[in-house]
């Protein structure tokens, strides 16, 4: 979003990253607002992990740039303010939990041992347990303890809840939300579990084929879209009402005589349409399913609203 009053945690301009001949990200421009929870969504291979690696300085952009609170990713300043929990939660399996926290303390000047220990204790994990013997849920908890011990201003979570059972998922997400409530941490979280993101995020960034397809405040995006159902118009080839701007259509299906369409903007006038404001999950699914027609690029930054 382009709200100038909200400070920016991440800012990308013309950002691209190529691996040999394949562009993982191409010509991306977006901002991630500070103090908010941003969901990073997209199909596998859309560039989500590449984006995380660029934001932490583990990869460098091929084109354009990405800044973290105005600093270059990987610089001392950016590193001190950022914590990244990678998909595979890399911890040393032969370390004990206590060793792992000590390691975090030695690598970070601004380490909060009490906070890290509190998170571990709340999960009833003994400090002398070896990482390799922890359950998935316990390992996630320790990884989060290390991430929060850093006292980051920006927390990047790449699929943190994959492989966790539903109870542990809620527990882990609860931990993250607690940290946000206490410290106002900016969070970017990628996940395929759209229904779980709905109650969690303020902002959404949808990547597809290495490009930004949707970027904005969740409520505003939902209110900017409408889904309507009614009788298909027999006089038009696509069943959509004649007056409707086809450029605003995200998705439309005709089943028999019935038309269901998902558009950015307002529904056609007339009382024969059943209209609904979509939920975030419905919105994301519509964009994930829809073809990448060039007219839909107006979806960026609310330009079409």
């Amino acid at each position: 979003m382009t709200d100038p009053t909200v400070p920016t945690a991440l800012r990308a301009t013309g950002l691209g990253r190529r691996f040999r001949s394949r562009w993982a990200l191409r010509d991306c421009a977006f901002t991630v607002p500070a103090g908010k929870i941003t969901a990073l969504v997209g199909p596998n291979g859309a560039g989500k992990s590449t984006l995380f690696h660029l934001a932490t300085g583990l990869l460098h952009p091929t084109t354009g740039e990405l800044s973290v609170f105005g600093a270059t990713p990987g610089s001392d300043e950016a590193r001190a303010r950022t914590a990244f929990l990678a998909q595979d939660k890399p911890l040393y399996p032969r370390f004990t939990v206590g060793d792992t926290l000590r390691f975090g303390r030695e690598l970070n000047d601004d380490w909060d041992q009490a906070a890290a220990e509190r998170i571990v204790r709340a999960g009833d994990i003994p400090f002398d347990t070896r990482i390799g013997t922890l359950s998935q849920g316990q390992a996630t908890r320790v990884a989060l303890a290390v991430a929060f011990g850093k006292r980051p201003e920006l927390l990047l979570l790449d699929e943190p809840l994959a492989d966790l059972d539903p109870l542990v998922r809620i527990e882990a997400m609860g931990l993250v939300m607690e940290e946000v409530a206490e410290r106002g941490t900016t969070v970017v979280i990628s996940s395929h579990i759209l229904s779980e993101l709905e109650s969690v995020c303020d902002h959404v960034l949808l990547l597809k084929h290495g490009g930004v397809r949707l970027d904005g405040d969740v409520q505003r995006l939902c209110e900017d879209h409408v889904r309507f159902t009614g009788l298909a118009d027999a006089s038009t080839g696509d069943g959509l009402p004649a007056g409707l701007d086809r450029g605003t259509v995200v998705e439309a299906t005709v089943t028999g005589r019935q038309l269901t369409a998902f558009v950015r903007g307002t529904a056609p006038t007339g009382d024969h349409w059943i209209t609904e404001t979509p939920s975030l999950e419905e919105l994301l699914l519509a964009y994930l399913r829809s073809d990448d027609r060039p007219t839909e690029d107006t979806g960026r930054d609310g330009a079409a609203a």
Partner: protein
Amino acid sequence: MIAFRIDRRSGVATYLQLVHQVRQALRLGALEPGDRLPTAREVVAAVAINPNTVLRAYRELEREGLVEPRPGQGTFVQRSLSRAAAGADSPLRAEAVVWVARARAAGLEREDVEALAEAVLDETFYVAPADRAATPAPAPGPTPSPERVVRRSPQSMEEDT
């Protein structure tokens, strides 16, 4: 104290679910004036939702005069919603029981009765939302359910602040 639960499939905005649950607890007497609501941190640790959502719900309850934030102490219940007229042994309830029995005897299914009651409730309690004028051209189609209408108003007000 009150424990919240979130139904992620209900389609009702999360903050409204919290508002409803507090109102419900006030009606049932599970919450009474002077009781403290859980802090945002306590709520999000338990149900894993965005802390802003809790704050939004509490602001809404404050706007309705039901709760009051006390700096440094938390959010406290101001007034109760329990009403003798809606109690288990009230005459109104007895009349409702008779009415539902008549509807059933007339061959209506549960859903028919619900739809009928809801239509009457909508007619009786309908209040034009204050910010409707701000939205361009009201959405065509059937009258939006109250849920959807309420869902819009406080959010758009909030974004302006």
